[in-house]
């Protein structure tokens, strides 16, 4: 019997299996994408509709502070919004595995305990990267473009990827706690108001001060402002903006690290927790 147990292989072996098991789970995501490439596209239907509605319908009446094309102003906001949608996508995936017994199968196997959350968030990072590529192409089609050179553009995408990774850990935790696809599905509509309450679609300057406070501290705002800054898109924050919007790159990095610091241990603990 070719059985390798986790125990007795030392930390080196354990690390190796964590990486290999994680890689196997990332491979699982690749196979899924191959069978249902439509899902990648489906995830972008909503932002595409947003481009149409805001970029063309409402955008015609919205004036960007400091001047500039509204669609150029909008795209960084949509990048941030799509990045945020990963929370729900991840919650769904993990909750589905938990409710269908796939998670139990993983738990009953001599796998590394860390591999499952790391593998699943790693797989999400992969589909996130693909999402961003498709989004960028969509943006180029409607007249958006980065103005400050490829390096700063890459930095913007890297920042989005980092934030998405942090967010996917939050989604992983939610999925492990919810354990139920239906509940996860019902949480999905909450996403829209959260991304609306930010500077993604309109400047926050015009909001009542209490609302502006919330919007400026919304991580979506920091990510949006950071992208505008790095892509050289219109919509520079006003002088009286709150700290996260005034220092968007640093704020986005902080948000990402904070999410990881909180939800990595929580997810790993939730995965370990037995019973039911």
């Amino acid at each position, binding site marked *: *019997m*070719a*059985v*390798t*147990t*986790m*125990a007795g292989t030392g930390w080196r072996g354990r690390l190796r*299996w964590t990486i*290999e*098991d994680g890689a*196997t*789970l990332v*491979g*699982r995501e690749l*196979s*899924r994408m191959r*069978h*249902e490439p439509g899902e990648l596209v489906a995830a972008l239907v909503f932002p595409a509709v947003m481009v149409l509605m805001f970029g063309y319908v409402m955008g015609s009446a919205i004036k960007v502070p400091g001047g500039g094309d509204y669609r150029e102003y909008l795209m960084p906001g949509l990048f941030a919004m799509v990045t945020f949608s990963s929370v729900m996508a991840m919650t769904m995936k993990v909750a589905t595995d938990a409710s*269908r*017994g*796939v998670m*139990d*199968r*993983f*738990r*009953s*196997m*001599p*796998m590394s305990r860390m591999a499952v959350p790391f593998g699943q968030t790693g797989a999400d990072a992969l589909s996130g990267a693909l999402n961003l590529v498709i989004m960028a192409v969509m943006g180029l089609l409607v007249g958006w473009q980065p103005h400050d050179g490829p390096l700063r553009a890459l930095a913007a995408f890297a920042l989005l990827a980092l934030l998405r990774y942090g967010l996917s850990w939050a989604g992983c935790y939610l999925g492990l706690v919810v354990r139920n696809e239906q509940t996860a599905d019902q949480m999905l509509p909450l996403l829209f108001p959260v991304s609306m309450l930010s500077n993604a679609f309109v400047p926050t300057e015009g909001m009542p001060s209490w609302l502006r406070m919330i919007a400026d501290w919304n991580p979506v705002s920091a990510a949006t402002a950071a992208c505008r800054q790095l892509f050289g898109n219109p919509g520079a924050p006003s002088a009286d903006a709150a700290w996260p919007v005034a220092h968007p790159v640093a704020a986005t990095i902080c948000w990402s690290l904070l999410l990881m610091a909180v939800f990595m241990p929580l997810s790993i603990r939730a995965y370990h927790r*037995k*019973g*039911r």
Partner: protein
Amino acid sequence: MDEPIVVAEGLHKRFGDVHALRGLDLAISAGKVCGLLGPNGAGKTTAVRILATLADPDAGRARVAGHDVVREADRVRALIGLAGQYAAVDEKLTGRENLRMFGRLHHLSRARARRRADELLERFGLAEAADRVAGTYSGGMRRRLDLMASLLVAPRVLFLDEPTTGLDPRSRGEIWDAVRRLADDGTTVLLTTQYLDEADRLADDIVVIDHGRVIGQGTPDELKATLGNRVDVLLEEPGSSAVAADVLAAMTGTAPHAPSPGRLTSPAPASLRLADVVRELDRADVAVTDVTLRRPSLDEVFLHLTDGTAHDPPAAPDTSAGQDVPADPNGAVRQAVPAGRGVGAGQGGRVGGTARDDEGEVA
């Protein structure tokens, strides 16, 4: 290998107000198929989850192949397979991809995982559907894939949690064949089921549990023997049932039960001979269509144990208690009526055979 391969001692598990297990003891010898039988909510799934390291007991302990399921969970995980009612496979992957993935996660090499997947697909008749996404499989196919996923590294102990619940008869038959073959190859199997015919068909030993503890155990034969024989009479004229009932009562010492008009059933003492029943009824001028002296079906044993009733016969097994249980044709040893022969010696010998665990029984 004298120690049983699976041992549970005094397992307790509570979920809020629900006391799922109340001191469950279990011992399964290597190479046997053990059927864990009980009504819904009896604690079967909880017991399996604890043994498969998915849940920790609140009290008590359990070992699989000598390893404690809590302290040495990783060692246990390397030795077990788990399959069950949820068909835990990724519906968005093909059958082959599922098996390869689980093979890799069992730390088989890439080549070995591939080979093992192909072997299993062939052996379980899923080769043709192997490259279809599992979401398109029928319930039976999905369950088989789930079973295969638990066999990738030839487990020492296989846990099957209600493997055929909700399947059509043909798919059940396929799962049964697969389990039978595994058992023949020497795999120890712990099977939970609420189907009595399933336990009767597959299990070497049956453990009946209810309300989180064991209420009876033994081989199917031993369990049947705890209830003693039964005599069934089918009358030509339903009108003669009062007379026939008196005759039977005098012979068996118990007033018979009438599951339907013209049909009487009664527990039979071991000394009762079929020929005597026929003769006595004839003497009382009762015309009969059929007289049967048989061992009880597992259904009757089960109902007897779970009801906790006295020796009073349960109602007809196939109509009572709302149990979703097909009648068990194999349990009955039929005797032809006109023959003057007595009760078969083999059968008589089994009556009064050892009943290992009589707790909760008023026999």
